[in-house]
């Protein structure tokens, strides 16, 4: 598919984005958030630390965009330049085509009211009730009392905390706190929601409910959501596209099904390994590089990347191999409506050569390789 090709190329030209340029590339004109040659250098104790360099990235309106990478890769630095909690050291951040680097406090305040943010540790005001926490952004914006009342009530209802108006954050569970955080972030009807590890402090069940809420918000309000997470399942669950950062650079990006189905970069592969149905330990030890006799089974690893949009056709696969085929390990999951995953098969008593087996396997699966032989 052409998307694969596009991904392996550097993302279009690095770029000053004048209005004229936007007219030249109408399809790119409405990127909601655009990073252009963005760099960030911190003045650390032991000299400058480069957290980001040469970031070129477009985030479209209304998408759920994931950022992954190892610890210290620069994820937080990247997301925090969007609302200028961090000032870029070089390059640009454009929101709706407007460079935000030179904003003064007035414009910054205005910008931040268009961008909600939620945090790993919730960051709620401990001295304020749930109601007052959610009301605070409106209050400092000078919204009249009646209007504030309506809005806060509406949002607490949206996040399911109607009955917690007067509770203090210390009296809430982690999931409830994050719901307050979400209500607070949405109270100005923002266009963008930034989530920096918003579910990392929550248990799996609560994570699911928060993700459900985020998805609902994305669909109902058409919000652009940009999220960082260490949990690959979160990306798989709600993101449309994902970018992989490593040492302050983008090493891979694309639709989630594509990056997850067929990760290219070493870092992506490592990060996604838990989802990859790798060879179990016991099979690994039984595996031999050469067949012990002519009845030994060939172990094939078939990878389905979802790029053709079809589910693996098992009957076609088995009849193509002509022999005994057993399923050793593997799994297929659906991401964004595409089936992708690995199947590890043991093939024996097949009249076909190894090369022929692989050729036929590749008609069904996007990647196929021989892992070895088992007796």
């Amino acid at each position, binding site marked *: 598919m052409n998307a694969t090709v596009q991904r392996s190329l550097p993302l279009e030209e690095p770029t000053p984005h004048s209005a004229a340029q936007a007219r030249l590339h109408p399809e790119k004109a409405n990127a909601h958030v655009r990073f252009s040659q963005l760099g960030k250098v911190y003045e650390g104790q032991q000299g400058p630390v480069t957290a980001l360099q040469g970031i070129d990235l477009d985030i479209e309106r209304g998408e759920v965009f994931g950022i992954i990478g190892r610890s210290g890769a620069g994820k937080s630095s990247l997301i925090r330049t969007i609302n200028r909690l961090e000032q870029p050291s070089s390059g640009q951040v454009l929101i709706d085509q407007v460079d935000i680097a030179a904003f003064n406090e007035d414009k910054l305040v205005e910008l931040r009211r268009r961008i909600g943010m939620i945090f790993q540790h919730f960051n709620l005001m401990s001295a304020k009730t749930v109601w007052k926490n959610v009301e605070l952004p409106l209050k*400092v914006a000078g919204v009249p009392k009646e209007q504030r009342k309506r809005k806060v009530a509406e949002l607490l209802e949206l996040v399911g905390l109607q009955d917690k108006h007067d509770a203090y954050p210390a009296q809430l569970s982690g999931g409830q706190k994050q719901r307050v955080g979400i209500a*607070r972030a949405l109270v100005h009807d923002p266009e963008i929601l930034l989530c920096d590890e918003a579910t990392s402090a929550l248990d799996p069940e609560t994570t699911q409910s928060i993700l459900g809420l985020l998805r609902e918000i994305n669909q109902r309000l058409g919000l652009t959501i940009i999220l960082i997470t260490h949990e690959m399942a979160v990306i798989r669950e709600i993101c449309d596209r994902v970018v992989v950062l490593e040492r302050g650079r983008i090493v891979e990006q694309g639709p989630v099904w594509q990056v997850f189905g067929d990760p290219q970069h070493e870092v992506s592969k490592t990060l996604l390994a838990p989802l990859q149905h790798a060879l179990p330990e016991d099979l690994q030890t039984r595996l031999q590089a050469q067949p012990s006799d002519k009845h030994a089974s060939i172990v094939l690893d078939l990878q389905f990347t979802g790029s053709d949009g079809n589910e693996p056709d098992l009957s076609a696969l088995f009849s193509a191999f002509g022999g005994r085929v057993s399923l050793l390990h593997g799994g297929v999951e659906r991401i964004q409506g595409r089936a992708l995953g690995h199947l590890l098969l043991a093939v024996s008593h097949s009249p076909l050569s190894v090369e022929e087996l692989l050729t036929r396997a590749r008609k069904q699966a996007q990647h196929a390789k021989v892992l070895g032989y088992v007796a």
Partner: protein
Amino acid sequence: MWLDRLWQGVIDTFLMVGVSSLIALILGIPLAVILVTSGKGGIFEAPNVNRVLGAFVNIFRSVPFLILMVALIPFTRLIVGTTYGVWAAVVPLTIAATPFFARIAEVSLREVDHGLIEAAQAMGCRRWHIVWHVLLPEALPGIVGGFTITLVTMINSSAMAGAIGAGGLGDIAYRYGYQRFDTQVMLTVIVLLVVLVAVIQLGGDRLALRLNKR
């Protein structure tokens, strides 16, 4: 007769401690806010202001009250026209209490989680909003606790002031207890002071506890 004097002493002590602590409260909180927010990475970052103010506070904090009081005599005369009596004691007491309280309040303000400041920035708070709606309310229990300590310390200092002619319980204890060896008066003063300190400490603790929602 000495009971009347005792009563007057209580009132004088209240006046000295009350007025100087009140002024310390009014001046100390802004001072603490400036100390915290002008520091490195603060929301009103201004390293020079921070250094100068910090140095001032440290100087006044490190001079023992008795010496401070004597050193300030010309200044006191300039302000209140006399160096004798309750109002003359208020001047050095205030000047001692303000930096003392400011440092304690500063610690409470500094302990406010930086994440809360970021959250406030991210929601579109101006810097003054952050001071008013985040820093002060979040630090309030600590500030109340700090003010309690200041009050108790000022009772202590006011007694010292009393000994050199400011009036108040210290004055009475000094004159009756030390100069005339009147044990009854001495004991009464001690009991009064203990009760006073206990009431202030208890009240302050309870208020701080009630304000603390963490």
